């Protein structure tokens, strides 16, 4: 193999690396640099290795951080609970309507995120029929209302990130060989065992990808809390936005962003470790190699 051929993979990596450096490494560098500044909005912020910004950012906002973890966690579980059966139904029962149904999942994306969330405000307004019905079944979370409650924010997050869950699930379910399930049944497993021993392990990569794609943006989201929540439902994204635009406390905003990124990375690493790297990389049968 000539050396130029050997370099081909590196050339192919090139655009990705340039992208990562320009839009991830450089911004991260600046963010870290700002996070270590001290000063006031009037005097300006100068670089002084102000490490105390990090504990400060954490201690003042623990409530919102835990709230964000909780909301994003519940929204992810709900999205999985709704998304998996839906993707399953589209793949195995969709028949010739498969693509149409998949399109129906993506169709709301043609409207912007903001408009869709505002639309929920109208649908869920206190005197709307939807809320009246929920009230009859005692399902309206706060004194006869849905808006400005945790339930509304979690529902908004679930709704907005649901397609990120469904699409990877669909992709992995679609690749599933139906004959394997038949084989399992031939070997005397009932439907549930076949699902548990065949379908679920083979679609694990889709689940892992869907969970990550839902959890990470939901954790950092601020729009749902801003529009559908009240003062007691604000998430860490809202705090960062306030610090940056309203308080103009750039160092604390940067420090908090940095910490949240680190927190997400730790969660993701632990999760992948737990779910198995094979599942993450889309290795359909990790056992085969061992």
């Amino acid at each position, binding site marked *: 193999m*000539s*050396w130029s051929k*050997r*370099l081909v993979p590196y050339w192919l990596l090139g655009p990705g690396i340039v992208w990562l*450096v320009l839009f991830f490494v*450089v911004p991260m*560098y*600046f963010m870290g*640099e*700002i996070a270590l*500044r001290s*000063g*006031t*909005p*009037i*005097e*300006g*912020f*100068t*670089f002084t290795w102000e490490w105390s910004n990090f504990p400060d950012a954490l201690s*003042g*906002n623990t*409530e*919102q951080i835990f709230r964000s973890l909780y909301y994003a966690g519940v929204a992810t579980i709900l999205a999985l609970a709704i998304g998996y059966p839906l993707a399953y139904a589209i793949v195995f029962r969709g028949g010739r309507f498969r693509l149409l149904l998949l399109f129906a999942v993506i169709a709301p994306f043609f409207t912007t995120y903001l408009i869709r969330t505002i639309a929920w*405000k*109208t649908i869920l*307004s*206190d*005197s709307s029929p939807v809320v009246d019905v929920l009230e009859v079944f005692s399902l309206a979370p*706060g*004194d006869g*209302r849905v*808006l*400005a409650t945790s339930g509304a924010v979690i529902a908004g997050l679930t709704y907005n990130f649901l397609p990120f869950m469904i699409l990877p699930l669909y992709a992995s379910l679609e690749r599933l060989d139906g004959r394997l399930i038949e084989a399992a049944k031939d070997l005397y497993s009932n439907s549930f065992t076949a699902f548990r021993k065949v379908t679920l392990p083979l679609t694990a990569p889709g689940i892992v990808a869907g969970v990550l794609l839902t959890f990470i943006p939901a954790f950092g989201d601020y729009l749902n809390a801003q529009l559908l*929540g*009240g*003062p*007691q*439902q*604000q998430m860490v994204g*809202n*705090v960062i936005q*306030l*610090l*940056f*635009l*309203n*308080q*103009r*406390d*750039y160092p604390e905003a940067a420090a908090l962003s940095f910490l949240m990124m680190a927190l997400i990375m730790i969660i993701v690493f632990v999760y992948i470790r737990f779910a198995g790297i094979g599942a993450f990389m889309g290795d359909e049968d990790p056992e085969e190699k061992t």
Partner: protein
Amino acid sequence: MRRARARAAVKLALAAAATVALSLTVWACGGTIGGIANNPVEVAESNGPPEGDVTISNWPGYIQPNEGGEPGTISQFEKATGIKVDYIEDVNDNNEFFGKMRPLLEQGESGGRSIFVVTDWMAKEMYDFHFLQEIEPSSIPEVFKNLVPNLKNPKFDPGRKFSIPWQTGMTGIWVDESKAPEIKSVNDLFDPKYKGKVTMLQEMRDTVPLVMKAEGVDFEEATDEDWLKAIEKIEDAAASGQIRRFTGNDYTEELTAGNIVAAIGWSGDASIVANPDAEWIMPEQGCVIWSDNMVIPIGAPNVGAAFAFMDFVYEPEVAAGLTEYITYISPVKGVQELVPKELADDPLVFPSPEFQKSCSIQGSPPDPETVSKAWANVVAG
């Protein structure tokens, strides 16, 4: 040989990356982010006769649109002067707008804008940061001829060196009279009867002074402790679920949707509150009075056209058209005689001194940084 070349390439890449990182370090660590700009404050000067394009940033719904074949303010101005206007409604919140503009202003640029419309205290803050140009009275004769006397010498800008009033308004209470006719004072908003049915403005300088006044604090003499005490009261109400949300202009939607019975809000919003039962009332202990102002930022590309626009909206006929549509208080003399009688008699649009007797001019706390930090903690739960 091949290996060596590949290794050389890697080395070169590493060296390049190190150089970039190092130069970034030197460049970034040297400077200061934020703080007062180094440039001196300059007087705005027109470059030749007004012409060309001009970009104006204003709040949403704050101008007379083209309607029913009648040209709105912008079309009238374009027709009268031949200047092409790019009118953008991108000011939703003073702090947020400043937060967004700041990086540009620090570079001496305004993002192509020649006029911003911001509230008194924000205009003062921008000026103190050296982000605004001063305006000579001779540059805009029509403005200084027609400006109402009581707005000529505000405390924050005596003689109107950098801020030209756009509209004036009052902060008070919007009440849905069909649901809560008993609400007369800001204290009533804390009544547990209305739990979760009340919103307040996210703007600290609107909400906190009203609560302070309701507590009997003399606003002109208010100390940081007075501010913090009022903030604490609001914090408790937010924690108990009494206050449904802190809003910007969107309290009007909450009122329209019937989600709330009362809101702290602005006097001129009748045109956007589509709920016939909702009414703006003067709080028992008085309102907060403020103005939004046209300012010329540093780096404004078309100062001449900005002057022409300011003069134009101070022509009484044009100002009357604006008032008819946006129903705020006009800073222009002679408007009352030009609008329909019904509007001319409206105390919210042409308030008498008697009507406003217990109101206070909007202001900042003595230590804005500490107080606004406490406020941010309330807003972010």
